[in-house]
């Protein structure tokens, strides 16, 4: 028989003013099973908590109900007090008679009746509470970082420097990401590669970082502390152990006209290539779609060429290499897959994105995007840092920058602000003016968003000191007239249409998540928004966690981010990961589901509705080892306690601890007349 103690709190006047607390205590005392029912001015005070502890000992209570404020306020307090009294803390529940009663009603009689109802409901629940204990699960103290851009590099280094092993997976042949393509960075105009390259080398040389470049995550199983990650190591066609990175192979490759991804199509590369001189690892990769030998193989013809293999003194070229798979056990995962730029072309992957017909859908050769401009401005770029337009190599004297292309444009692109464009366009005008002294940079903008340390000063400098002409307005139309680009737009400050000629136009196109982010997110069971950006667990308070425990997010795959933001997020994920790895075991709330093995029919409706993949198949065998039935098993380490499985289970064969059917049934019963 239950022996329940009820403790009604006045909360000073907060509850007592509208609820007759003494009466609540008296009426609840008459409920079968209640052996102790009192009211007190401040239950959460030390003397109040002592009352709970004392009553547990004196009355031999089997459950505690505190009728006071919201459980979100003081459940932890009273569960601790209950534990202090020698009772399992989960045998204590709160009846919310403050937020849900005294504060929202004025009629004292009605509020008192309601407070009694609320408390009786919880009394019935507590009668059916059972002692629960915190779940402990082991933690594999190694981390996986997906993406080798600046965010991934920072996260990997921070975690590795914190003493834990890191697996870093990069889909491209080299780490470095977009930052390695940039010329100089705002607002300090320091050389991007100069600050990035040492970090890349550090990753390569770090004893606790294992780098898988040219690799992708194939599948992820498991849960926080216990992930099993299968990684596809794409065939590079190079024996990584033999290659010494001499580069002889790339010099002999006959196919030299392939647009270089690193130079955004403005430069060329060979079919066997190292994407850029500072690449890490410094290993060539054969682009099988462009290599003569593989193109012949695809057509069923005999192997030809092999010039690279002939040039290689180490016999490191392996035309027969295939994709390999490795499996790594990790306890935490950092997603840092970065971004891509919006293309204004006609064909778009998503129907809501339409491209820009008024700008010729990107068919005018001297209309380029911001990353292409970075390559033009970069000393290591295809023009060695000279500003030359792609069509004829002339130095543009009139350059026009258009901001918000695809950003803040729900009609044709995305409704969000890409955050970095205002700053990099200001930087571009400066770089341009530094290199083309008699040139004029003009910027069409909607607003200038320069919130950040030194940012506004920087953009003001571009305008006021470096002479960039800023026009507030949009360009409505652009076309090619001979070798000039005609621009028609509107100056919203002057209130008049503008027509001007330009030699080159740079579009500050929107930042979007990398393609394939959705399938990666699904593998990781993390949610993403309509644009494909990974959702953080809480926009304010858990900005680098995802809704899947043990999976964290850094950089531009979560939202448009500049370098300092991405690095800060990366370090934040590292601190979260290191915090998780501080203990060998992980403690979890015991509010998890459990399957009744005797009645489970194995229909696995629960598995279908579980957002966490917590439901596993379990075989019930007889003594001879024959499988009798296959039933559901909820992995308590993965279960987050939503209870959707229980509501879905047709035979009610799964119970969520703390919210069992019996408990809910009794609560409803307690409200009966």
């Amino acid at each position, binding site marked *: 028989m239950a022996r329940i103690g009820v403790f009604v709190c006045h909360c000073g006047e907060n509850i007592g003013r509208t609820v007759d607390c003494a009466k609540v205590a008296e009426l609840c005392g008459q409920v079968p099973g209640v052996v102790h029912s009192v009211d007190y001015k401040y239950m959460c005070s030390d003397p109040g908590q002592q009352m709970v502890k004392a009553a547990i000992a004196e009355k031999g209570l089997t459950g505690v109900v505190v009728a006071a404020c919201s459980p979100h306020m003081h459940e932890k307090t009273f569960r601790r007090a209950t534990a202090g009294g020698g009772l399992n803390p989960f045998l204590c529940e709160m009846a919310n008679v403050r937020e849900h009663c005294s504060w929202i009603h004025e009629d004292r009689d009605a509020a008192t009746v309601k407070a009694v109802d609320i408390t009786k409901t919880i009394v019935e629940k507590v009668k059916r509470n059972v002692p629960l204990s915190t779940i402990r699960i082991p933690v594999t103290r190694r981390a996986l970082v997906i993406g080798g851009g600046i965010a991934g590099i920072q996260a990997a280094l921070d975690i590795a420097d914190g003493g834990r092993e890191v697996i870093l997976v990069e889909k491209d042949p080299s780490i470095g990401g977009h930052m390695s393509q940039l010329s100089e960075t705002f607002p300090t105009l320091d050389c991007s590669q100069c600050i990035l390259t040492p970090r890349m080398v550090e990753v390569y040389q770090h004893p606790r970082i294992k780098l898988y470049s040219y690799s992708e995550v194939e599948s992820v199983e498991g849960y926080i502390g216990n992930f099993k990650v299968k990684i596809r190591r794409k065939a590079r066609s190079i024996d990584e152990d033999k290659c010494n990175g001499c580069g002889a192979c790339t010099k002999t490759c006959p196919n030299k006209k392939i647009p270089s991804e690193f130079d955004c199509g403005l430069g060329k590369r060979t079919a066997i290539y190292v994407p850029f001189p500072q690449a890490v690892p410094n290993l060539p990769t054969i682009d099988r779609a462009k290599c003569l030998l593989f193109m012949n193989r695809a057509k069923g013809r005999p192997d030809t060429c092999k010039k690279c293999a002939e040039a290689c003194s180490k016999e490191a070229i392996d035309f027969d290499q295939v994709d390999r798979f490795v499996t790594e056990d990790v306890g935490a995962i950092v997603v840092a897959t970065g971004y891509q730029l919006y293309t204004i072309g006609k064909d778009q992957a998503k129907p809501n994105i339409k491209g820009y017909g008024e700008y010729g859908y990107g068919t005018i050769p001297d209309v380029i995007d911001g990353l292409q401009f970075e390559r033009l401005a970069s000393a290591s770029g295809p023009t060695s840092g000279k500003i030359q337009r792609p069509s004829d190599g002339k130095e543009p004297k009139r350059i026009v920058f258009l901001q918000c292309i695809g950003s803040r444009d729900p009609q044709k692109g995305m409704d969000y602000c890409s955050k970095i464009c205002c700053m990099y366009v200001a930087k571009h005008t400066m770089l341009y003016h530094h290199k083309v002294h008699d040139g004029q940079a003009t910027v069409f903008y909607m607003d200038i968003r320069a919130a950040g340390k030194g940012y506004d000063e920087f953009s003001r400098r571009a305008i006021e000191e470096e002479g960039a002409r800023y026009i507030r307005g949009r360009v409505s139309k652009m076309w090619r007239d001979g070798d000039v680009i005609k621009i028609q737009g509107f100056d919203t400050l002057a209130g008049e249409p503008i027509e001007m000629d330009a030699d080159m136009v740079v579009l500050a196109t929107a930042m979007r998540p990398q393609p394939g982010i959705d399938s990666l997110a699904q593998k990781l069971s993390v949610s993403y928004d309509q644009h494909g950006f990974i959702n953080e667990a809480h926009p304010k308070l858990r900005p680098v966690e995802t809704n899947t425990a043990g999976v964290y997010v850094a950089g531009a795959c979560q939202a448009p981010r500049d370098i300092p933001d991405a690095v800060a997020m990366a370090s934040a994920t590292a601190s979260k990961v290191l915090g998780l790895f501080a203990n060998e075991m992980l403690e979890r709330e015991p509010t998890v589901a459990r399957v009744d093995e*005797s*009645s*489970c*029919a*194995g*229909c*696995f*409706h629960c598995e*279908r*509705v579980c957002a966490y993949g917590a439901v596993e198949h379990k075989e019930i065998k007889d003594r001879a080892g024959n499988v009798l*039935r*296959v039933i559901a098993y909820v992995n308590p380490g993965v279960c987050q306690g939503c209870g959707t499985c229980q509501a*879905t289970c*047709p*035979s*009610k*064969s799964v119970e969520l601890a703390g919210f069992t*059917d*019996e408990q809910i*049934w*009794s609560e409803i019963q307690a409200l009966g007349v």
Partner: protein
Amino acid sequence: MTELRELARRLLSEGTVNAVLGWEEGPRGARPAFVTTPDGADRLIFDPRCVHDLASYLSPRRPHLKKLGKVAVVLKPCDARAVAGLIRETQIPRENVVLVGVRCGGVLADPESTAPLSETTVADRCRGCPDREAKLADHVVGTAGAGFPGPSRRAQKIEELAAMPVDRRWDFWQAELSKCVRCHACRQVCPLCFCERCMADKSLPRWIESSPHARGNIAWHITRAMHLAGRCVDCGECERVCPEGIPLGLITRKIAQVVSDRYDFRPSDDPAVPAPVGTYRMDDPQEFIL
């Protein structure tokens, strides 16, 4: 029929299966048959009186049939939908059963009926049924009539009920549901009511009162309908077996309509198609939610 018998004989004599579940001539019309010897195959029949959904016998919760080992089962297209449900819900491994589809152009309402199959005698559920043969089957035999056009009478009845004022609809259903004696025949015969222990038999807590009073009855029938939402294959067995003649098909069909209208789902015999309950779309309609 010869084709069916020959196939059954071959499956049994070659040892592919230990039993063939089909139909035979019983004392009162067609009835389920369990043929365990090649010679027994001559007992098998298929004609419009073969209304029974034999998929019900495949449930693993029938230990006395599990002993038969691997079986072949003869299926109408509607029965195949039930088998697909059992496979989808991991009740039977596909490879453990041989499925023999019979082409079907509709069946009668009653296995005892002697009337020829016609527009007037066809089972109401067959009106508008688009399926003539089971795509899921390993073997398909026989020939099918053209089927019968919809709409079914019960579709009209559902519309009629939907047009009633809500309290008159309540009266209609109370008159029907109060007849229920909670024998649970509807559950026992349903191919997709395969729970190890039915929720209605669970006593702690007892969500569904076991007494056959109106309150327990409505709780039971709401539960049954909810559990069959998106799963009911319209084999019609529940309504056929109800000893009190409650029009249970109206409820299951109404829910099927809701599922079809809201989630564009119609049960098929493709086990790979996920059921609509247990999945979701982010943009599911939610006009009723404030």
